[in-house]
């Protein structure tokens, strides 16, 4: 998810509709599996396609109607989640076919270290790293990807040099939808049922993870690797506190403080090193 959001933030945009898109995707594939086919491949195709279509809508709104991204996606968020819940009335979809559930539990390269305790790479990580690798490639090695960075650097310049900004915008939102579709599909196979309301409030986490990973919300800076780190850090922050035996009522306080402190330190460091940056090579004193 966070990976999917990265290019949008890179262009200086933001998408708060991620949570509603993933909810819509899970509902669609849930019904698809039960009603049409439980072929894993087909499910993934449907999931990704429906995500991509919803992303495309965002992209069109931003690119063609020039609605600021945060607002456009705020609108679509409200609409998509409204439609999803109106149609499903929030009912969970249960009875996901077993083959799909098994898929979600596949560990690749599972090695049994001790009896009864297999460790391995759960399939969701394969997808995560797969998505990350794909995104990295797109951003680094395609013209569109570089256009994303260029747009984040300077919209005017990007336009002048001949990038088709509309196309890039539409592409990244669609691509984001696609990846969210993927995430939704994987998620469903892990969770074994579909809860349309499960993702409310999720969007802020996604944004936080991306930005924690070093992407600038003003656009132009950020990397896939940083985002992965951000996701990891955020996961640790949110879930590691139980492991550290921190009392429940203190956890949010700790998360908040760590979040603010870590970013502040980072910024202060950057500022310090910037202020020490050499602008003029000073002539040495002649001995």
């Amino acid at each position: 998810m966070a990976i999917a959001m990265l290019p949008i933030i890179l262009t200086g945009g933001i998408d708060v509709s991620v949570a509603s898109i993933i909810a819509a995707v899970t509902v669609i594939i849930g019904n698809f599996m039960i009603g049409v086919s439980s072929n894993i491949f087909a499910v993934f195709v449907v999931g990704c396609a429906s995500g991509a279509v919803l992303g495309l809508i965002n992209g069109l709104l931003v690119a063609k109607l020039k609605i600021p991204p945060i607002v456009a996606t705020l609108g679509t968020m409200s609409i998509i989640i409204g439609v999803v819940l109106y149609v499903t009335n929030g009912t969970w979809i249960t009875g996901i076919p077993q083959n799909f559930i098994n898929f979600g539990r596949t560990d690749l390269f599972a090695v049994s270290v001790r009896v009864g305790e297999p460790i391995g790479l759960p399939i969701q990580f394969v997808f995560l790293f797969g998505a990350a690798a794909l995104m990295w490639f797109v951003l680094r090695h395609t013209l569109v990807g570089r256009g994303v960075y260029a747009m984040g650097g300077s919209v005017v310049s990007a336009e002048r040099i001949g990038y088709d900004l509309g196309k890039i915008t539409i592409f990244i939102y669609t691509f984001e939808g696609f990846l969210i579709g993927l995430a939704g599909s994987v998620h469903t196979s892990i969770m074994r049922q579909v809860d349309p309301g499960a993702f409310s409030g999720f969007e802020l986490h996604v944004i936080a993870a991306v930005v924690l990973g070093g992407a600038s919300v003003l656009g132009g800076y950020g990397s896939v690797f940083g985002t992965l780190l951000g996701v990891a850090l955020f996961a640790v922050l949110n879930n590691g506190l139980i492991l550290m035996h921190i009392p429940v009522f203190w956890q949010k306080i700790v998360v908040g403080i760590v979040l603010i402190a870590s970013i502040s330190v980072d910024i202060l460091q950057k500022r310090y090193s910037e202020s020490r940056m050499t602008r003029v090579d000073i002539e040495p004193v002649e001995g």
Partner: protein
Amino acid sequence: MPTNKLSAFIKRKEFILLVIFVLVFVLMSALAPKQFLRPFNIQSMAFQLPEFGILAIAMMVVIVSGGINLSITYTATLSSIVAAVAISSMSQAGVADWKVILLGIVIALATSLAAGAINGFVVAYVGVTPMLVTLGTMTLFEGVSLNITKGGAISGFPDSFLWLGNATIIGIPVPMVIFVAIVLASWYLMGRSRFGFSVYMIGCNPRATMFSGINVKRVLMGVYLFSAVLCALSGLIMSSRYNSAKESYGSSYLLQSIAAAVLGGTDIAGGYGSLSGTVLAVMILQVITSGTNIIGINPYLTNIIMGAILIFVLALNYLSSRRESRKLG
């Protein structure tokens, strides 16, 4: 004269909003003629609007400065919780009601100032992106609130405290009176004062503003403090209206307040935003929620309608401004 044209154009945005407001109002009246237009309903809408309206202004001010404040709802509830603890314990100790309430308000304001100071300090003096700072403080304030309430609600207010949120003065709800006062004060502050002028300039170009000798850090600090004080007032109204204080009150107002600010013509990138637009947007949202409730429309449909209006208005703004420039350019 381009002068007139320019101001006419700015007015146009609000004009569109006004038209929409009238449209939804008429629509709702037509769909539920007996119920919607009853004075009782108008009054009850006037009760409901302020707590959200104040938060929307708190959001708008920060957006104009080029930031965003995700911590508004928790600033509101945190300050009302701290005040509630003080109020209920003092009133149990038998302190006179008016003293208790006055002190409660002071405590709420003080708490919100502390909260705003954290935001302001990290944004202005440390230089962290507002979205991140307030994401952090949002979590922090929620955590502190939870720690105080242990998940419950704080109640036990003296009855006279309920006046703040529930009484009327010649038929006008007290919260509405407070809201109008706040709107006027904010209008002066943002539209007329040096402070407001600086906020708009900073929202457009903080660097050039700083180079002009304006104390950008202090102004930004002021913006977050002002926003927090508004939150506290909204929090007090809520705790009086709901007879208790709890961390989750009004949590659904967060994204709505961004929507209201933007619907009201505030530029999400900063530098532009009008109070009247925001107030109109808040009124539109209020009429839609109340109206659809009364008519008995599925609440999810209400969500869909609001999303559609948001996109519709912005698309309209874009299209009309494009036509404008086509015509002339």
